[in-house]
């Protein structure tokens, strides 16, 4: 079949249908009229935290509405129990103004937005110090992913895993492996799980971003584990499950980890217990106090880089928003005492639990051939770090932690 189709004569082709381009001169500054001044080119419905409105604020603030501000018709859907929107009682913490009555609206009341003091309550002053929005989320996480991949790839090419001893292989496959489960549960069921519950868009977005860090870190560890299974003779890629499910040294940590998503109806407690208590006393204790310290002595220069980026996310980003969120509540102009009491209660509930779980990890410190610092020394560093966080927040260190 070699029949050729004749090309139609181009002159006979119907004209292509395309939209007309026309000169409209609809450019900023083309005419003078009310609101044409450059001064009118900013979002005028919110006040910035500092002098100037930031890009982060522009894309975040007030996207989630509030009936105490301009939401004149109120929330239009309710839950079966009558709750609507983003209830302020989904945490025991309070920010100034929350007990003031919301504007009443009905026949002939007007929209209720004029003359309202804004912000109507202290929650609206919270800003993520990391200023995370779309662009930063992808830029940061893509950089992390590239860095981790490169490190592992370089190590593979350099046969860097060949120098690992049996004991170190066991340690990485079981314990570094087990940690992926901690990150995964926190990422999905604590941070993402509470991301509907915060009072403002700023709060819920930081929880989403924190969640992404954790889920990514969990996957980084899982995929690192997969590479090691392929590259290292005798590396058991399923040993992390055995450790997580049955190893006595891990059950204390597992119990506390699982208790965090079980916190009932309090996003504030979930964030506080995780980022203020669990992370320094268990997370950093294990990641920095053990893995990062033990690895070099055992000829492992790769694991610290994988674990280190997760550690960095917590220390530099996630802890930063946590302090910016909880610190001002301790100084709140209306509810400082209430909030301090609530947080001290949380500390009383979670610190003994976290410390008990931390102690159950102790056997791991004696597993590697080249020993890391003593467990007690690592724990002391973790406790100091924890006390430092509490003093930044203006809270008292519970007696269990005082050395």
């Amino acid at each position, binding site marked *: 079949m070699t029949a050729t189709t004749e090309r139609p004569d181009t002159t006979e082709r119907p004209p292509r*249908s395309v939209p*007309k*381009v*026309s*000169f*409209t*001169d*609809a*450019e*900023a*500054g083309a*005419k003078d*009229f*009310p*609101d044409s001044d450059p*001064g*009118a*080119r900013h*979002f005028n*419905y919110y006040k910035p935290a500092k002098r100037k409105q930031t890009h982060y604020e*522009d*894309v975040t603030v*007030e*996207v989630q509405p509030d009936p105490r*501000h*301009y939401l*004149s018709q109120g*929330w*239009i*859907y*309710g839950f*079966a129990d*009558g709750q*609507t929107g983003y209830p302020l009682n989904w945490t025991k913490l309070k920010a100034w103004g929350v007990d003031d009555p919301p504007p009443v609206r*009905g*026949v002939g009341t007007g*929209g209720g*937005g*004029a003359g309202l003091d804004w912000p109507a309550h202290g929650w609206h002053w919270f800003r993520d110090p990391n200023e995370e*929005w*779309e662009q930063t989320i*992808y*830029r940061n*996480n*893509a950089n992390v992913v590239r860095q981790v991949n490169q490190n592992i790839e370089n190590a593979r090419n350099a046969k860097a895993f060949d120098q690992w001893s049996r004991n170190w292989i066991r340690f990485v496959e079981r314990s570094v492996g087990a940690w*992926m489960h901690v990150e*995964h549960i926190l990422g999905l069921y604590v941070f*993402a799980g509470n*991301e*509907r*519950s915060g009072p403002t868009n700023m709060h819920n*977005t930081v929880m989403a971003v924190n*969640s992404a860090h954790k889920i*990514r870190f969990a996957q*980084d560890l*899982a*995929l690192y584990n*997969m590479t090691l299974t392929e590259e290292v003779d005798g590396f058991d890629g*399923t040993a992390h*499950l055995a450790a997580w499910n049955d190893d006595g040294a891990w059950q204390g940590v597992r119990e506390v980890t699982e208790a965090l998503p079980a916190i009932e109806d309090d996003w504030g407690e979930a964030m506080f217990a995780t980022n203020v208590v669990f992370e320094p006393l268990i997370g950093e204790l294990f990641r920095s106090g053990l893995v990062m310290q033990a690895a070099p002595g055992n000829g492992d220069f790769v694991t610290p880089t994988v674990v280190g980026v997760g550690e960095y996310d917590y220390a530099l980003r996630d802890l930063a928003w946590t302090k910016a969120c909880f610190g001002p509540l301790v100084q709140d102009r209306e509810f400082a005492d209430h909030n301090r009491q609530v947080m001290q209660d949380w500390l009383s509930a979670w610190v003994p639990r976290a410390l008990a779980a931390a102690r159950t990890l102790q056997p791991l410190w004696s597993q590697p051939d080249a020993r890391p610092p003593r467990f007690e020394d690592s724990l002391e560093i973790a406790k100091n770090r924890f006390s430092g966080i509490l003093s930044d927040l203006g809270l008292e260190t519970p007696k269990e932690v005082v050395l």
Partner: protein
Amino acid sequence: MSRQSLAKAHQKIQELSWEPQYHEPYMKYGTDYTFRKAQKKDPLKQILRSYFPMEEEKDNRVYGAEDGAIRGNMFRQVQERWLEWQKLFLSIIPLPEISAARSMPMLFHAVPNPELHNGQAIQMIDEVRHSTIQQNLKRLYMNNYIDPAGFNNSLRGFHNDYCGTIGRQFAEGFITGDAITAASIYLTIVAETAFTNTLFVAMPAEAAANGDYLLPTVFHSVQSDESRHISNGYATLLMALSDEGNRQLLERDLRYAWWNNHAVVDAAIGTFIEYGTKDRRKDRESYAEMWRRWIYDDYYRSYLVPLEKYGLTVPHDLIEEAWNRIWNKGYVHEVAQFFATGWLANYWRIDGMTDEDFEWFEYKYPGWYDKYGKWWENYSRLATPNGHKPIVGEDVDYVYPQRCWTCMVPCLIREDMVTAEVDGVHRTYCSETCRWTDVEAFRPVYQGRETPNMGRLVGNREWETLYHGWSWDKVVEDMGFVRDDGKTMTAQPHLNLDPKKMWTTDHLKRMGPLLSPNVLFNEMSDEQRAAFVADYNRQGPAGRPAPASA
């Protein structure tokens, strides 16, 4: 990453699935659906190692295009008629997006299959992306388009404007009430699977035809995440279907969600595409043609109907009726006419229709001119202030409509308006299905079955109620829809930026007070009300009063 290593990696991360051993997670969000805990395949096979760089790459293209558009003076060729409607659209859409993010935890709590949670968590980040990338686009318009008014007060406008409230259903509906009704059926099965095509594909095409290639750049980038979300929804739907006890709820929710999405999205997007464009080529598809292709053929025929064999009751009657409303009952035209009638209550400028527009409408919708032509001629006649009132205060053969209590779009197809008395208040509805939604579906008992988790329709659902008895100038001031001289209105019924041609709140002082149709309706005696309804049902099309003799 290669396909093979991606599949292997995906296999590996399944090992992360959590089976609680010491504590069950707290289930904050209730549902009346039941799910069996069965092994389920994650439909997406998405891992963050490839996800983050992929999205970053997509971002780079978007931001590159934005820089290019500004350097290339895109706004010298953008049609103001089009961009003005973006003041409404881009004030609404970031909330639905972020609400979609907020709905994902509801699914973790309601659907006990950890294999699905991974995909839902990634969707959550996607939605943060969508919300902020759209806020950012709006910011760019505010900074570079000739008229920033309406962009600069965007979220205030959205929060206190009746159009914003209508749009808000497409957000609060995702996150409130029964977790599956909201986050699965309303959001993924209907909003994302059926209607994102019109939002994120049809709209951008029209934008490009009006000189704006940034909206397409941003929204195509958003849409490219959507297929993953659709797979999320599909997997959940199949699981729900596998339990026969869910089928009655699925039927209810699909009817509600379909009808509400149609009422809200077709009203808004239909208006933007048909009345916001300057592109009147006869061979460009009308909204009705696009709807037929994307929603009727692609969604209804190709997606929903095949699910019948798994036990899904497809609302054939409501799909046909939505089409009937669009094609025979002039739904989009009636809505656009209402928006333009009430131009003074909004925060964007609405251009009048010209002879070229008339010709296109008549070609695409035969009979259009006889119904709507005269009214649009009046609209242009009354466009600049010249001793008369805004069109809503003038006699142009238009009866100001009642609002639908459920979808909050006015009851514009007059013969379809129905009423009900609920909790001692007389409510009007645009259609029988909207009545059913309020009176029967959003209730703690449905067809004799307990539905303790079903949500409620609440709030001040008729905007006019708030301003009953107010003078119009005060209404506009109260909403903040004035420019920086304190009196020139943000909204205008034309595109002329000559200050002498622009309406100010002073011009509104000659109008009578705003009266709430619902308040008046409730003040009537039963006989008056019955007569009012009978008359209303004989009105239209195009809002015309009922003919003098029955």
